[in-house]
């Protein structure tokens, strides 16, 4: 049971395996696109893990990467279409990054490293947990960036206007990609630091 929860902390795809960092920097300026992206990746990761695991004994090893890419890109295109039909403005905010889920190393990594050699049930959970681990980092980073960079959360103004009248300014650096990298770096630091002390 403990190993299932690994992706949320010790084996976090972004913090420990340093995968999927590009999209984590790109979509975290606001909470809403970050949550939608996190859900999209989780859905794609879980379902592709399940499908690949179900057909793992029929996949010829020589073309397994092609088969994996076919499954992943099919799911991503479907997610993209659903987003365009239901969350049109968010899908525009995410722009190319939904399509780029296809090349997200977390998903290919889980398919290669887990789904090909495990049962469908375990693979589904593994995909789900890795997607959630990725999403967790996105949401934490996005909360910092939106709150400090725009004074809002989920587009609701949280910092009262009296603060601005008293001279408070939004931190413009927060909404630029470099600050996302610094925040992710900070999370890696915290996570690595606490891990060491618990393993001593």
């Amino acid at each position: 049971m403990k190993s299932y929860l690994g992706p949320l902390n010790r084996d976090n795809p972004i913090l420990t395996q340093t995968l999927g960092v590009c999209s984590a920097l790109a979509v975290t300026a606001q909470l809403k696109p970050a949550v939608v992206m996190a859900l999209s990746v989780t859905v794609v990761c879980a379902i592709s893990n399940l499908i690949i695991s179900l057909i793992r004994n029929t996949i010829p090893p020589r073309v397994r990467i092609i088969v994996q890419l076919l499954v992943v890109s099919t799911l991503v295109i479907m997610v993209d279409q659903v987003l365009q039909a239901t969350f049109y403005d968010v899908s525009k905010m995410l722009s190319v990054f939904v399509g780029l889920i296809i090349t997200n190393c977390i998903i290919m990594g889980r398919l290669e490293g887990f789904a090909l050699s495990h049962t469908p049930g375990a693979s589904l959970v593994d995909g789900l947990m890795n997607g959630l681990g990725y999403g967790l980092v996105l949401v934490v980073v996005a909360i910092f960036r939106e709150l400090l960079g725009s004074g809002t959360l989920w587009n609701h103004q949280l910092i009262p206007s009296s603060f601005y009248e008293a001279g408070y300014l939004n931190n413009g650096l927060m909404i630029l990609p470099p600050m996302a990298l610094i925040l992710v770096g900070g999370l890696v630091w915290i996570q690595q630091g606490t891990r060491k002390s618990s393993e001593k």
Partner: protein
Amino acid sequence: MKTFSNRYIFIYITVMVTIIALLLTLVSLGLKPMRENNQQIEKAQQILKAAGYGKIDKKEAIALFNEVSERDDLNGEEAYNIQCADGTQGHVLYVKGKGLWGPIWGYVVLSDDFTTVKGVVFAHKSETPGLGDRITEDAFQQAFIGKKLYDKNGNYVSVRVLPAGREGGISDDNRVDAISGATLTSKGVDEMLQQLTVDN
């Protein structure tokens, strides 16, 4: 490891691709009405914004758009007559051009006599976030309001998008500052607007 014949691999991939193609076609066709509806709403919202109505709620955009505008194509291009928020009549012209990475397009609202810009909106498919995609920001689009299409001698120059210091003799009445860091996207907007044909 199990070995698979070439024949098996070939049939496997063919069957898989066929299933995926069918699946994607079904999803795409099934969601098409919702996607198109979203695009219609967005277009109505954009044109209304250019005509000075501000941001109109999704639910009201199409109704309001139909109320204040009527289609009146110009030179075979999509165009509308519209009653602007300030009570005057205007003409909405559709423009399209090339950005750095993909197509850009927009709507230009002109005064009744086709000489003055009353507002613009621009949209793009895949311009760089934070640089080229700033053509969709209010700060850039509001700079177009009140610009003239003709110079002081009555020659048609359209509205040029040129960086300060490289105006090339174009007066500020006919010029908007280019976006620094987005030279090619700005150039795309410049070229797009030069194709604006207002001759009746």
